């Protein structure tokens, strides 16, 4: 099966090269048969990648310990669930998985648009094939997942099979680790589609804003996966790594945040192009940048170029990625220089207080944040180049820059959608922001009275209340209009409103989710932790909780040995529940994993870690954390994802309830009139 798989990969590479080279020839000659055959080659590439991926999974499921990759990442005792995840637990497999997910996108695009956009699609096909060829080069010639185990002997190279594998890294043996990488990678790969369309439109001088309409949904799908991937990663770090936090500004985390920041900026600034024909150059470069950051992110995650010091292993894929990034940059720049006249803006900024300027500042903030995170992440690399000494920056650097930026962005989240295009009158400002401002200030006063004095958390809570109020008011106003016209109750009217303009109201729901996430993030300002040596029956206190160690023992399981604790939690001296923090020592690879016990409420998380044993006394050590509001982050994440999915749903046509409407031809125009009456302004859609 390993030979079969590697042959499928090789064939995929050949087809990919044909799709790329043939595609260029097809664009030059415009020969319809050539166009068709390159499109089919593109599809064949995807199918062959699927076959190769399935073969690798087959090797895992049949415990083929003659394959180097299977030996490194699996063993006989590993459950089937994690054998699926073992596919992307190492470098070679992850890169194949990248190709796999990209193939899913590519084949969908090729199928969906096979009879549409005839002028544009050959270009799109070539760009997509180019990206695929790069990854297939890595899969085939640099980091092949189908290598067999073997040793150099005097007579040549001899193959051998091991009795069992090394096992999967225990830190990855956690349900979220099975779904986190596919999500994040789906985000990374998904941004290839808007990139391909943008570059293709620029190369083909494709008329108008059509590429933006075509790619809007693809971008949102990629963005949704990326968001989910980041949050799942944060949750995994929180629940498994046992250090009490969810985000540490570590290079791999930063790598996933970078394309998210520019992707978010892109999702907003395309609206300027759709509505006002502005920011065309900016949008094209934003989507180019997002794609490049996705490639960079994959590179940072896979190569360990930043995270490791000299002692830790580095990999061979680095030069390939750097080469590819430079190549893409060159192509983008060349296409831009050649066709930049086609990107001329149709309008100018009119006023500081307008929707346009709020988008402009939204983009500025996201981009400054992106640059700060990028430079902080790459600082060790660049400082070594320029000054010879490797210097890293830590959490204070990232927090100092990103906290104020985050709050500014939160402010714009509330203000932006309510500003009118071009120019907003003072009267409309008062009408739109009077109530929300009041709500924000009152919440601020209440929070202040509750004893919260920190500047950032206070501002954050006030802004959250303000933004939540603006969003609620938008739903209320729109629903009121529908209610007046249809006799629905307010809730049903709000639902109807949302379904009639999913893009706008889905967007508001995403904003609401971000508000919840900000509430959760602000909670981090009040984190506490206590560490204590325990004995059976002894107690420790944290906040209003008392932890009583009831017992602790050690037990051998199939794959690992477990050190367990039974901790009784008392709140205000009343028994509340039992927690079972645990440490696992994995037999196969001498690694250990922490099973954190978390008691989570909307108000706070009680997070209990079995931190090890005191080396002198052998007493078990409990490290307990009290993390307020963390649950809001995960809830907010769910809301963001639901809002994004909603925004992907097509709008429902307004159903007229007027009696005797017998002229169907008139219906759409009346419906549109109704809709514009509902939205008051030119909508956020």
């Amino acid at each position, binding site marked *: 099966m390993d030979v079969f798989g590697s042959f499928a990969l090789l064939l995929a590479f050949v087809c990919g090269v044909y799709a790329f080279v043939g595609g260029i020839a097809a664009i030059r000659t415009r020969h319809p048969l050539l166009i068709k055959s390159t499109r089919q080659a593109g599809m064949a590439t995807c199918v062959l990648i699927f076959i190769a991926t399935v073969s690798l999974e087959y090797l895992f499921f049949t415990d083929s310990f003659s394959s*180097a990759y299977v030996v*490194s990442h699996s063993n006989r005792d590993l459950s089937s669930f994690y054998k699926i995840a073992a596919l992307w*637990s190492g*470098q*070679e497999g*992850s890169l194949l998985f990248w190709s796999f997910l990209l193939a899913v996108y590519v084949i969908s695009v090729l199928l969906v648009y096979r009879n549409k956009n005839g002028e544009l699609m050959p270009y799109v096909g070539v760009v997509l094939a180019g990206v695929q060829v790069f990854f297939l080069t890595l899969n085939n010639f640099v980091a092949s997942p189908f*290598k067999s*185990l*073997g*040793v150099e002997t005097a007579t040549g190279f001899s193959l051998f099979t091991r009795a069992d594998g*090394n096992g999967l*890294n225990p*830190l*990855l043996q956690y349900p979220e680790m099975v779904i986190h*990488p596919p999500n994040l990678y789906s985000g990374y790969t998904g941004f290839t589609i808007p990139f391909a369309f943008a570059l293709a439109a620029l190369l083909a001088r494709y008329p108008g804003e059509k590429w933006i309409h075509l790619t809007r949904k693809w971008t949102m799908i990629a963005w949704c996966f990326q968001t989910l991937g980041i949050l799942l990663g944060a949750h995994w770090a929180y629940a*498994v*790594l046992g*250090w009490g936090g969810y985000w540490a500004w570590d*290079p*791999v985390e930063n790598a996933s945040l970078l394309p998210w920041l520019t992707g978010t900026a892109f999702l907003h600034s395309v609206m300027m192009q759709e509505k006002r024909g502005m920011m065309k150059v900016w949008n094209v470069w934003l989507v180019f940048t997002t794609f490049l950051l996705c490639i960079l992110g994959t590179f940072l995650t896979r190569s360990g170029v930043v*995270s490791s*010091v*000299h*002692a*830790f292993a580095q*990999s061979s894929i680095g030069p390939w990625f750097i080469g590819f990034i430079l190549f893409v940059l060159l192509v983008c720049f060349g296409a831009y220089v050649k066709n930049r006249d086609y990107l001329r803006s149709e309008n100018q*900024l*009119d*006023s*500081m207080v307008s929707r346009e*300027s709020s988008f402009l*500042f939204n983009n*500025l*903030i996201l981009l*400054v944040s992106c640059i*700060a995170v990028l*430079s902080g992440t790459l600082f*060790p690399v660049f400082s070594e180049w320029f000054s010879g*000494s*490797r*210097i*890293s*920056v*830590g*959490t*204070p*650097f990232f927090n*100092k*820059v990103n906290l*104020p930026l985050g709050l500014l962005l939160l402010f714009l989240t509330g203000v932006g959608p309510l500003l009118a295009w071009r120019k907003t009158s003072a009267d409309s400002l008062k009408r739109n922001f009077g109530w929300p401002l009041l709500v924000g200030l009152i919440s601020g006063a209440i929070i202040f009275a509750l004893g919260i004095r920190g500047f950032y958390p206070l501002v954050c809570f006030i802004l959250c209340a303000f933004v939540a109020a603006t969003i609620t008011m938008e739903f209320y106003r729109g629903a009121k209009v529908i209610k007046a016209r249809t006799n629905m109750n307010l809730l049903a009217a709000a639902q109807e409103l949302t379904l009639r303009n999913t893009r706008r109201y889905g967007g508001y729901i995403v904003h609401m989710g971000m508000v919840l996430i900000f509430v959760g993030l602000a909670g981090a300002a009040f984190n506490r932790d206590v*560490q204590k040596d325990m004995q059976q029956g002894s107690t420790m206190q944290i906040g209003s909780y008392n932890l009583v160690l009831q017992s602790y023992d050690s037990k051998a399981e199939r794959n690992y040995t477990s050190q367990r604790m039974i901790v009784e939690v008392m709140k205000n001296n009343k028994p509340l529940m039992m927690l079972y923090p645990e440490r696992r*020592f994995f037999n*196969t690879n*001498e*690694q250990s994993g922490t099973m954190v016990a978390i008691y989570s409420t909307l108000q706070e998380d009680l997070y209990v870690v079995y*931190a*090890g044993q005191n*080396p002198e006394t052998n007493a078990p*050590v409990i*490290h307990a954390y009290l993390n307020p509001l963390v649950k809001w982050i995960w809830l907010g994440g769910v809301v963001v994802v639901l809002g994004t999915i909603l925004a992907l749903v097509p709008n429902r046509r307004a159903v007229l309830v007027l009696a005797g409407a017998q002229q169907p031809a008139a219906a759409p125009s009346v419906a549109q009139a109704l809709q514009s009456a509902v939205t008051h302004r030119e909508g956020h859609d």
Partner: protein
Amino acid sequence: MQKKAKFGVGIGVIVVSMAVLAWLGYSDSKTYYHTIAELSTLQGSARNHRMRVGGTVEPGSIRRLSGRVDFVLEGEGKTLPVSYVGSDPLPDTFIDKSQALVEGKPGSDGRFVAEHVQAKCASKYEAAPGGDKPSASPSAVQRSEM
């Protein structure tokens, strides 16, 4: 033109204040990477920087004392005595011959005073011939052990 100037000022204020904050954060948190060999050649103020040093734990050198753990790191033929004074228990992967990364400052008596120790097993997790790097997210693995 006045409009453009207004936007310019707005953008300028954001960018400049972020640059200032970035500089403050940088000064607060910069950490130098050094090898054990470089450490002995550092002069003057360079010795007082916060730094990270990587190496292999010398077999048999780990001594657990009250309030601290002493051990010796070796790398490129040189050795460095280290005292770990941090509050977290040392990671389980911290054993003889493991690769360790210590963060802290050199003390006056030639011992390196570490507040954080990250460690990684050198042995079994690395693949057999033809293998690759050990984990999906190396930095995450290290962080767990801080």
